[in-house]
């Protein structure tokens, strides 16, 4: 490898390792919906997210009623929404997904 190649790869490796911020991920939320909820809820992820506006999803998150709002949007998913895994692991990703694809978001999901 050329010295330039070595220098560039070293720099990018260093910068990449500075990754420290934890972000919820809408794409991950979309995958979670597809895997865990699509068949249970009987609707696409887009339809589920479009049940509410961005402000409504955001408000529910702030009020601590996000789980309840999701349950209302998909009653068949009650067990999943009330599971410990959902609260601990999936909730933030799924929130990012429904917020990004809310009825007034202008975004169009593929699932």
């Amino acid at each position, binding site marked *: 490898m050329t010295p330039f190649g070595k220098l560039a790869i070293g720099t990018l490796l260093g910068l*990449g390792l500075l990754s420290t*911020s934890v*972000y919820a*991920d809408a794409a991950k939320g979309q995958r979670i919906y597809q895997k865990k909820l699509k068949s249970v809820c009987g609707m696409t992820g887009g339809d589920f997210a479009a049940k509410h*506006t961005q402000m409504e999803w955001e408000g529910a998150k702030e009020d601590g009623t996000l789980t309840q709002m999701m349950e209302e949007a998909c009653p068949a998913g009650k067990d999943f929404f009330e599971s410990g895994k959902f609260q601990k692991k999936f909730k933030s990703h799924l929130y990012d997904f429904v917020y990004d694809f809310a009825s*007034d978001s202008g*975004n169009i999901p593929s699932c």
Partner: protein
Amino acid sequence: MQKRLLSIAAIASLSTLCLADEAAMQAQIDAMSKKIEKLEKKQTYTNKKLSKVNAQSANDNIKFGIDFRNAVDVVDYRDNTNDTYATNPSLFSSRLYLTMGASPMKGLTFKGKLAIYSTWGSHLYVDDAPLKDWSASSKATDTVMRIKEAYFVYSDAIGAQPISVSIGRRPATNGFLSNYRENEPQPGSPLAHITNMEVNAMMVKLDWGRFIEGAYTKFVYGRAHQGPMENVYGTGSTPWGPYALKESDDKSVDFLVIPGNAYDDGQYQVMYEWAHIFNTKGQKFNDPSTKKDAAGTADLLSLGLKVSGIGDEISDFLDDTTLFISGAYTNYQAKDGFQLLGSTDGGSKSGSSVWAGVIIPDMITDDGKIGFEYNYGSQYWTPMTWAEDTAIGSKIAVRGSAYEAYWNFNLFGVKYLPSQIRYTYVQHDYTPNVNCAGWVAPEKTDITATDLRLAVSYRF
């Protein structure tokens, strides 16, 4: 007695005062309740108004996004037979995608992607002969902005059968399985193992989800190459005829592609595709002076399995691991008097390929992934993947073996700065399949090509 009277009077006046205070307080509470009610009504109205404004700014118009990537590729080519060597230690490129999306009503969407993909210090306008409409936004060239994608989709149902129709410049690049190596969150429409080209087409999609989870079939008909025509104004031609086709063996190349999901539950996904290409370019039999003639047809088949997450919540590592394997077959059938890929007169040549990959969490960064891929292609393996974004040419099209490793991560941990380090090693055992050139017979060779790409993007 007087004292008693005074006490009674004091108690009476105090009670009156208390009653008066209570009434005043009640009046105040009532007034406040009314105010709160009014404010709530106002708040509801404001929320509704805001949603409308939000929808107007996002839904009723085009919503734009940016995907801006800067990359440096270190490319090397070694022809081990002749011991010759070619290299570029620093191929800098910038790629700007201006993405567009709109959904003016339920069931109708428009999507578009304008692209500039240039090498740094490029010529003002690159018109290399092999650069065609079907790869112009996928290969680093000049700073001209081109349309990479622009199509609308209308979805409805005929009885119980959901149906979608679409027309335009399709999302036909970086399809199923190739989005990992491209560090893109979603794949394009087709199976990247056999078709990876920028094309214009019409599409009808039938959803079978009510029978098999996630199943659908798309029927896509389009044109990848326009045969030669008289010029725009028909000058210099007899008889006069703007846009009239010229008499030539170089015919228009149309295609029928049928991709689909056989099953998709979000964890296991099986996709298939059959592509039939009309008027595939080849040459007249035993006449090396000819090329680009409509010499026959090509059929491409692929079947791929992707597993997103191993097992069910065994561990975070396995949940975030992806495995895939895909097999593919190509058959080029020449018509009488012609040959394709060195076939006999009217004969055919077939090839096959395997593509496997694993993508695992990098265990260093929060969302980083490391991927490993392997490709193998036989002597006559000839997929149409020439818009694949690899500086050394399509690695999926290799007639030999290709090995690849990449690390996808977010620079500084910022999700809007997706970045990649990718190393591709390709061993060509037969003539590299780098372009639509059915008149070239794959012959034994020994060429090694490598590409180290470092890329940093801004995506929002």
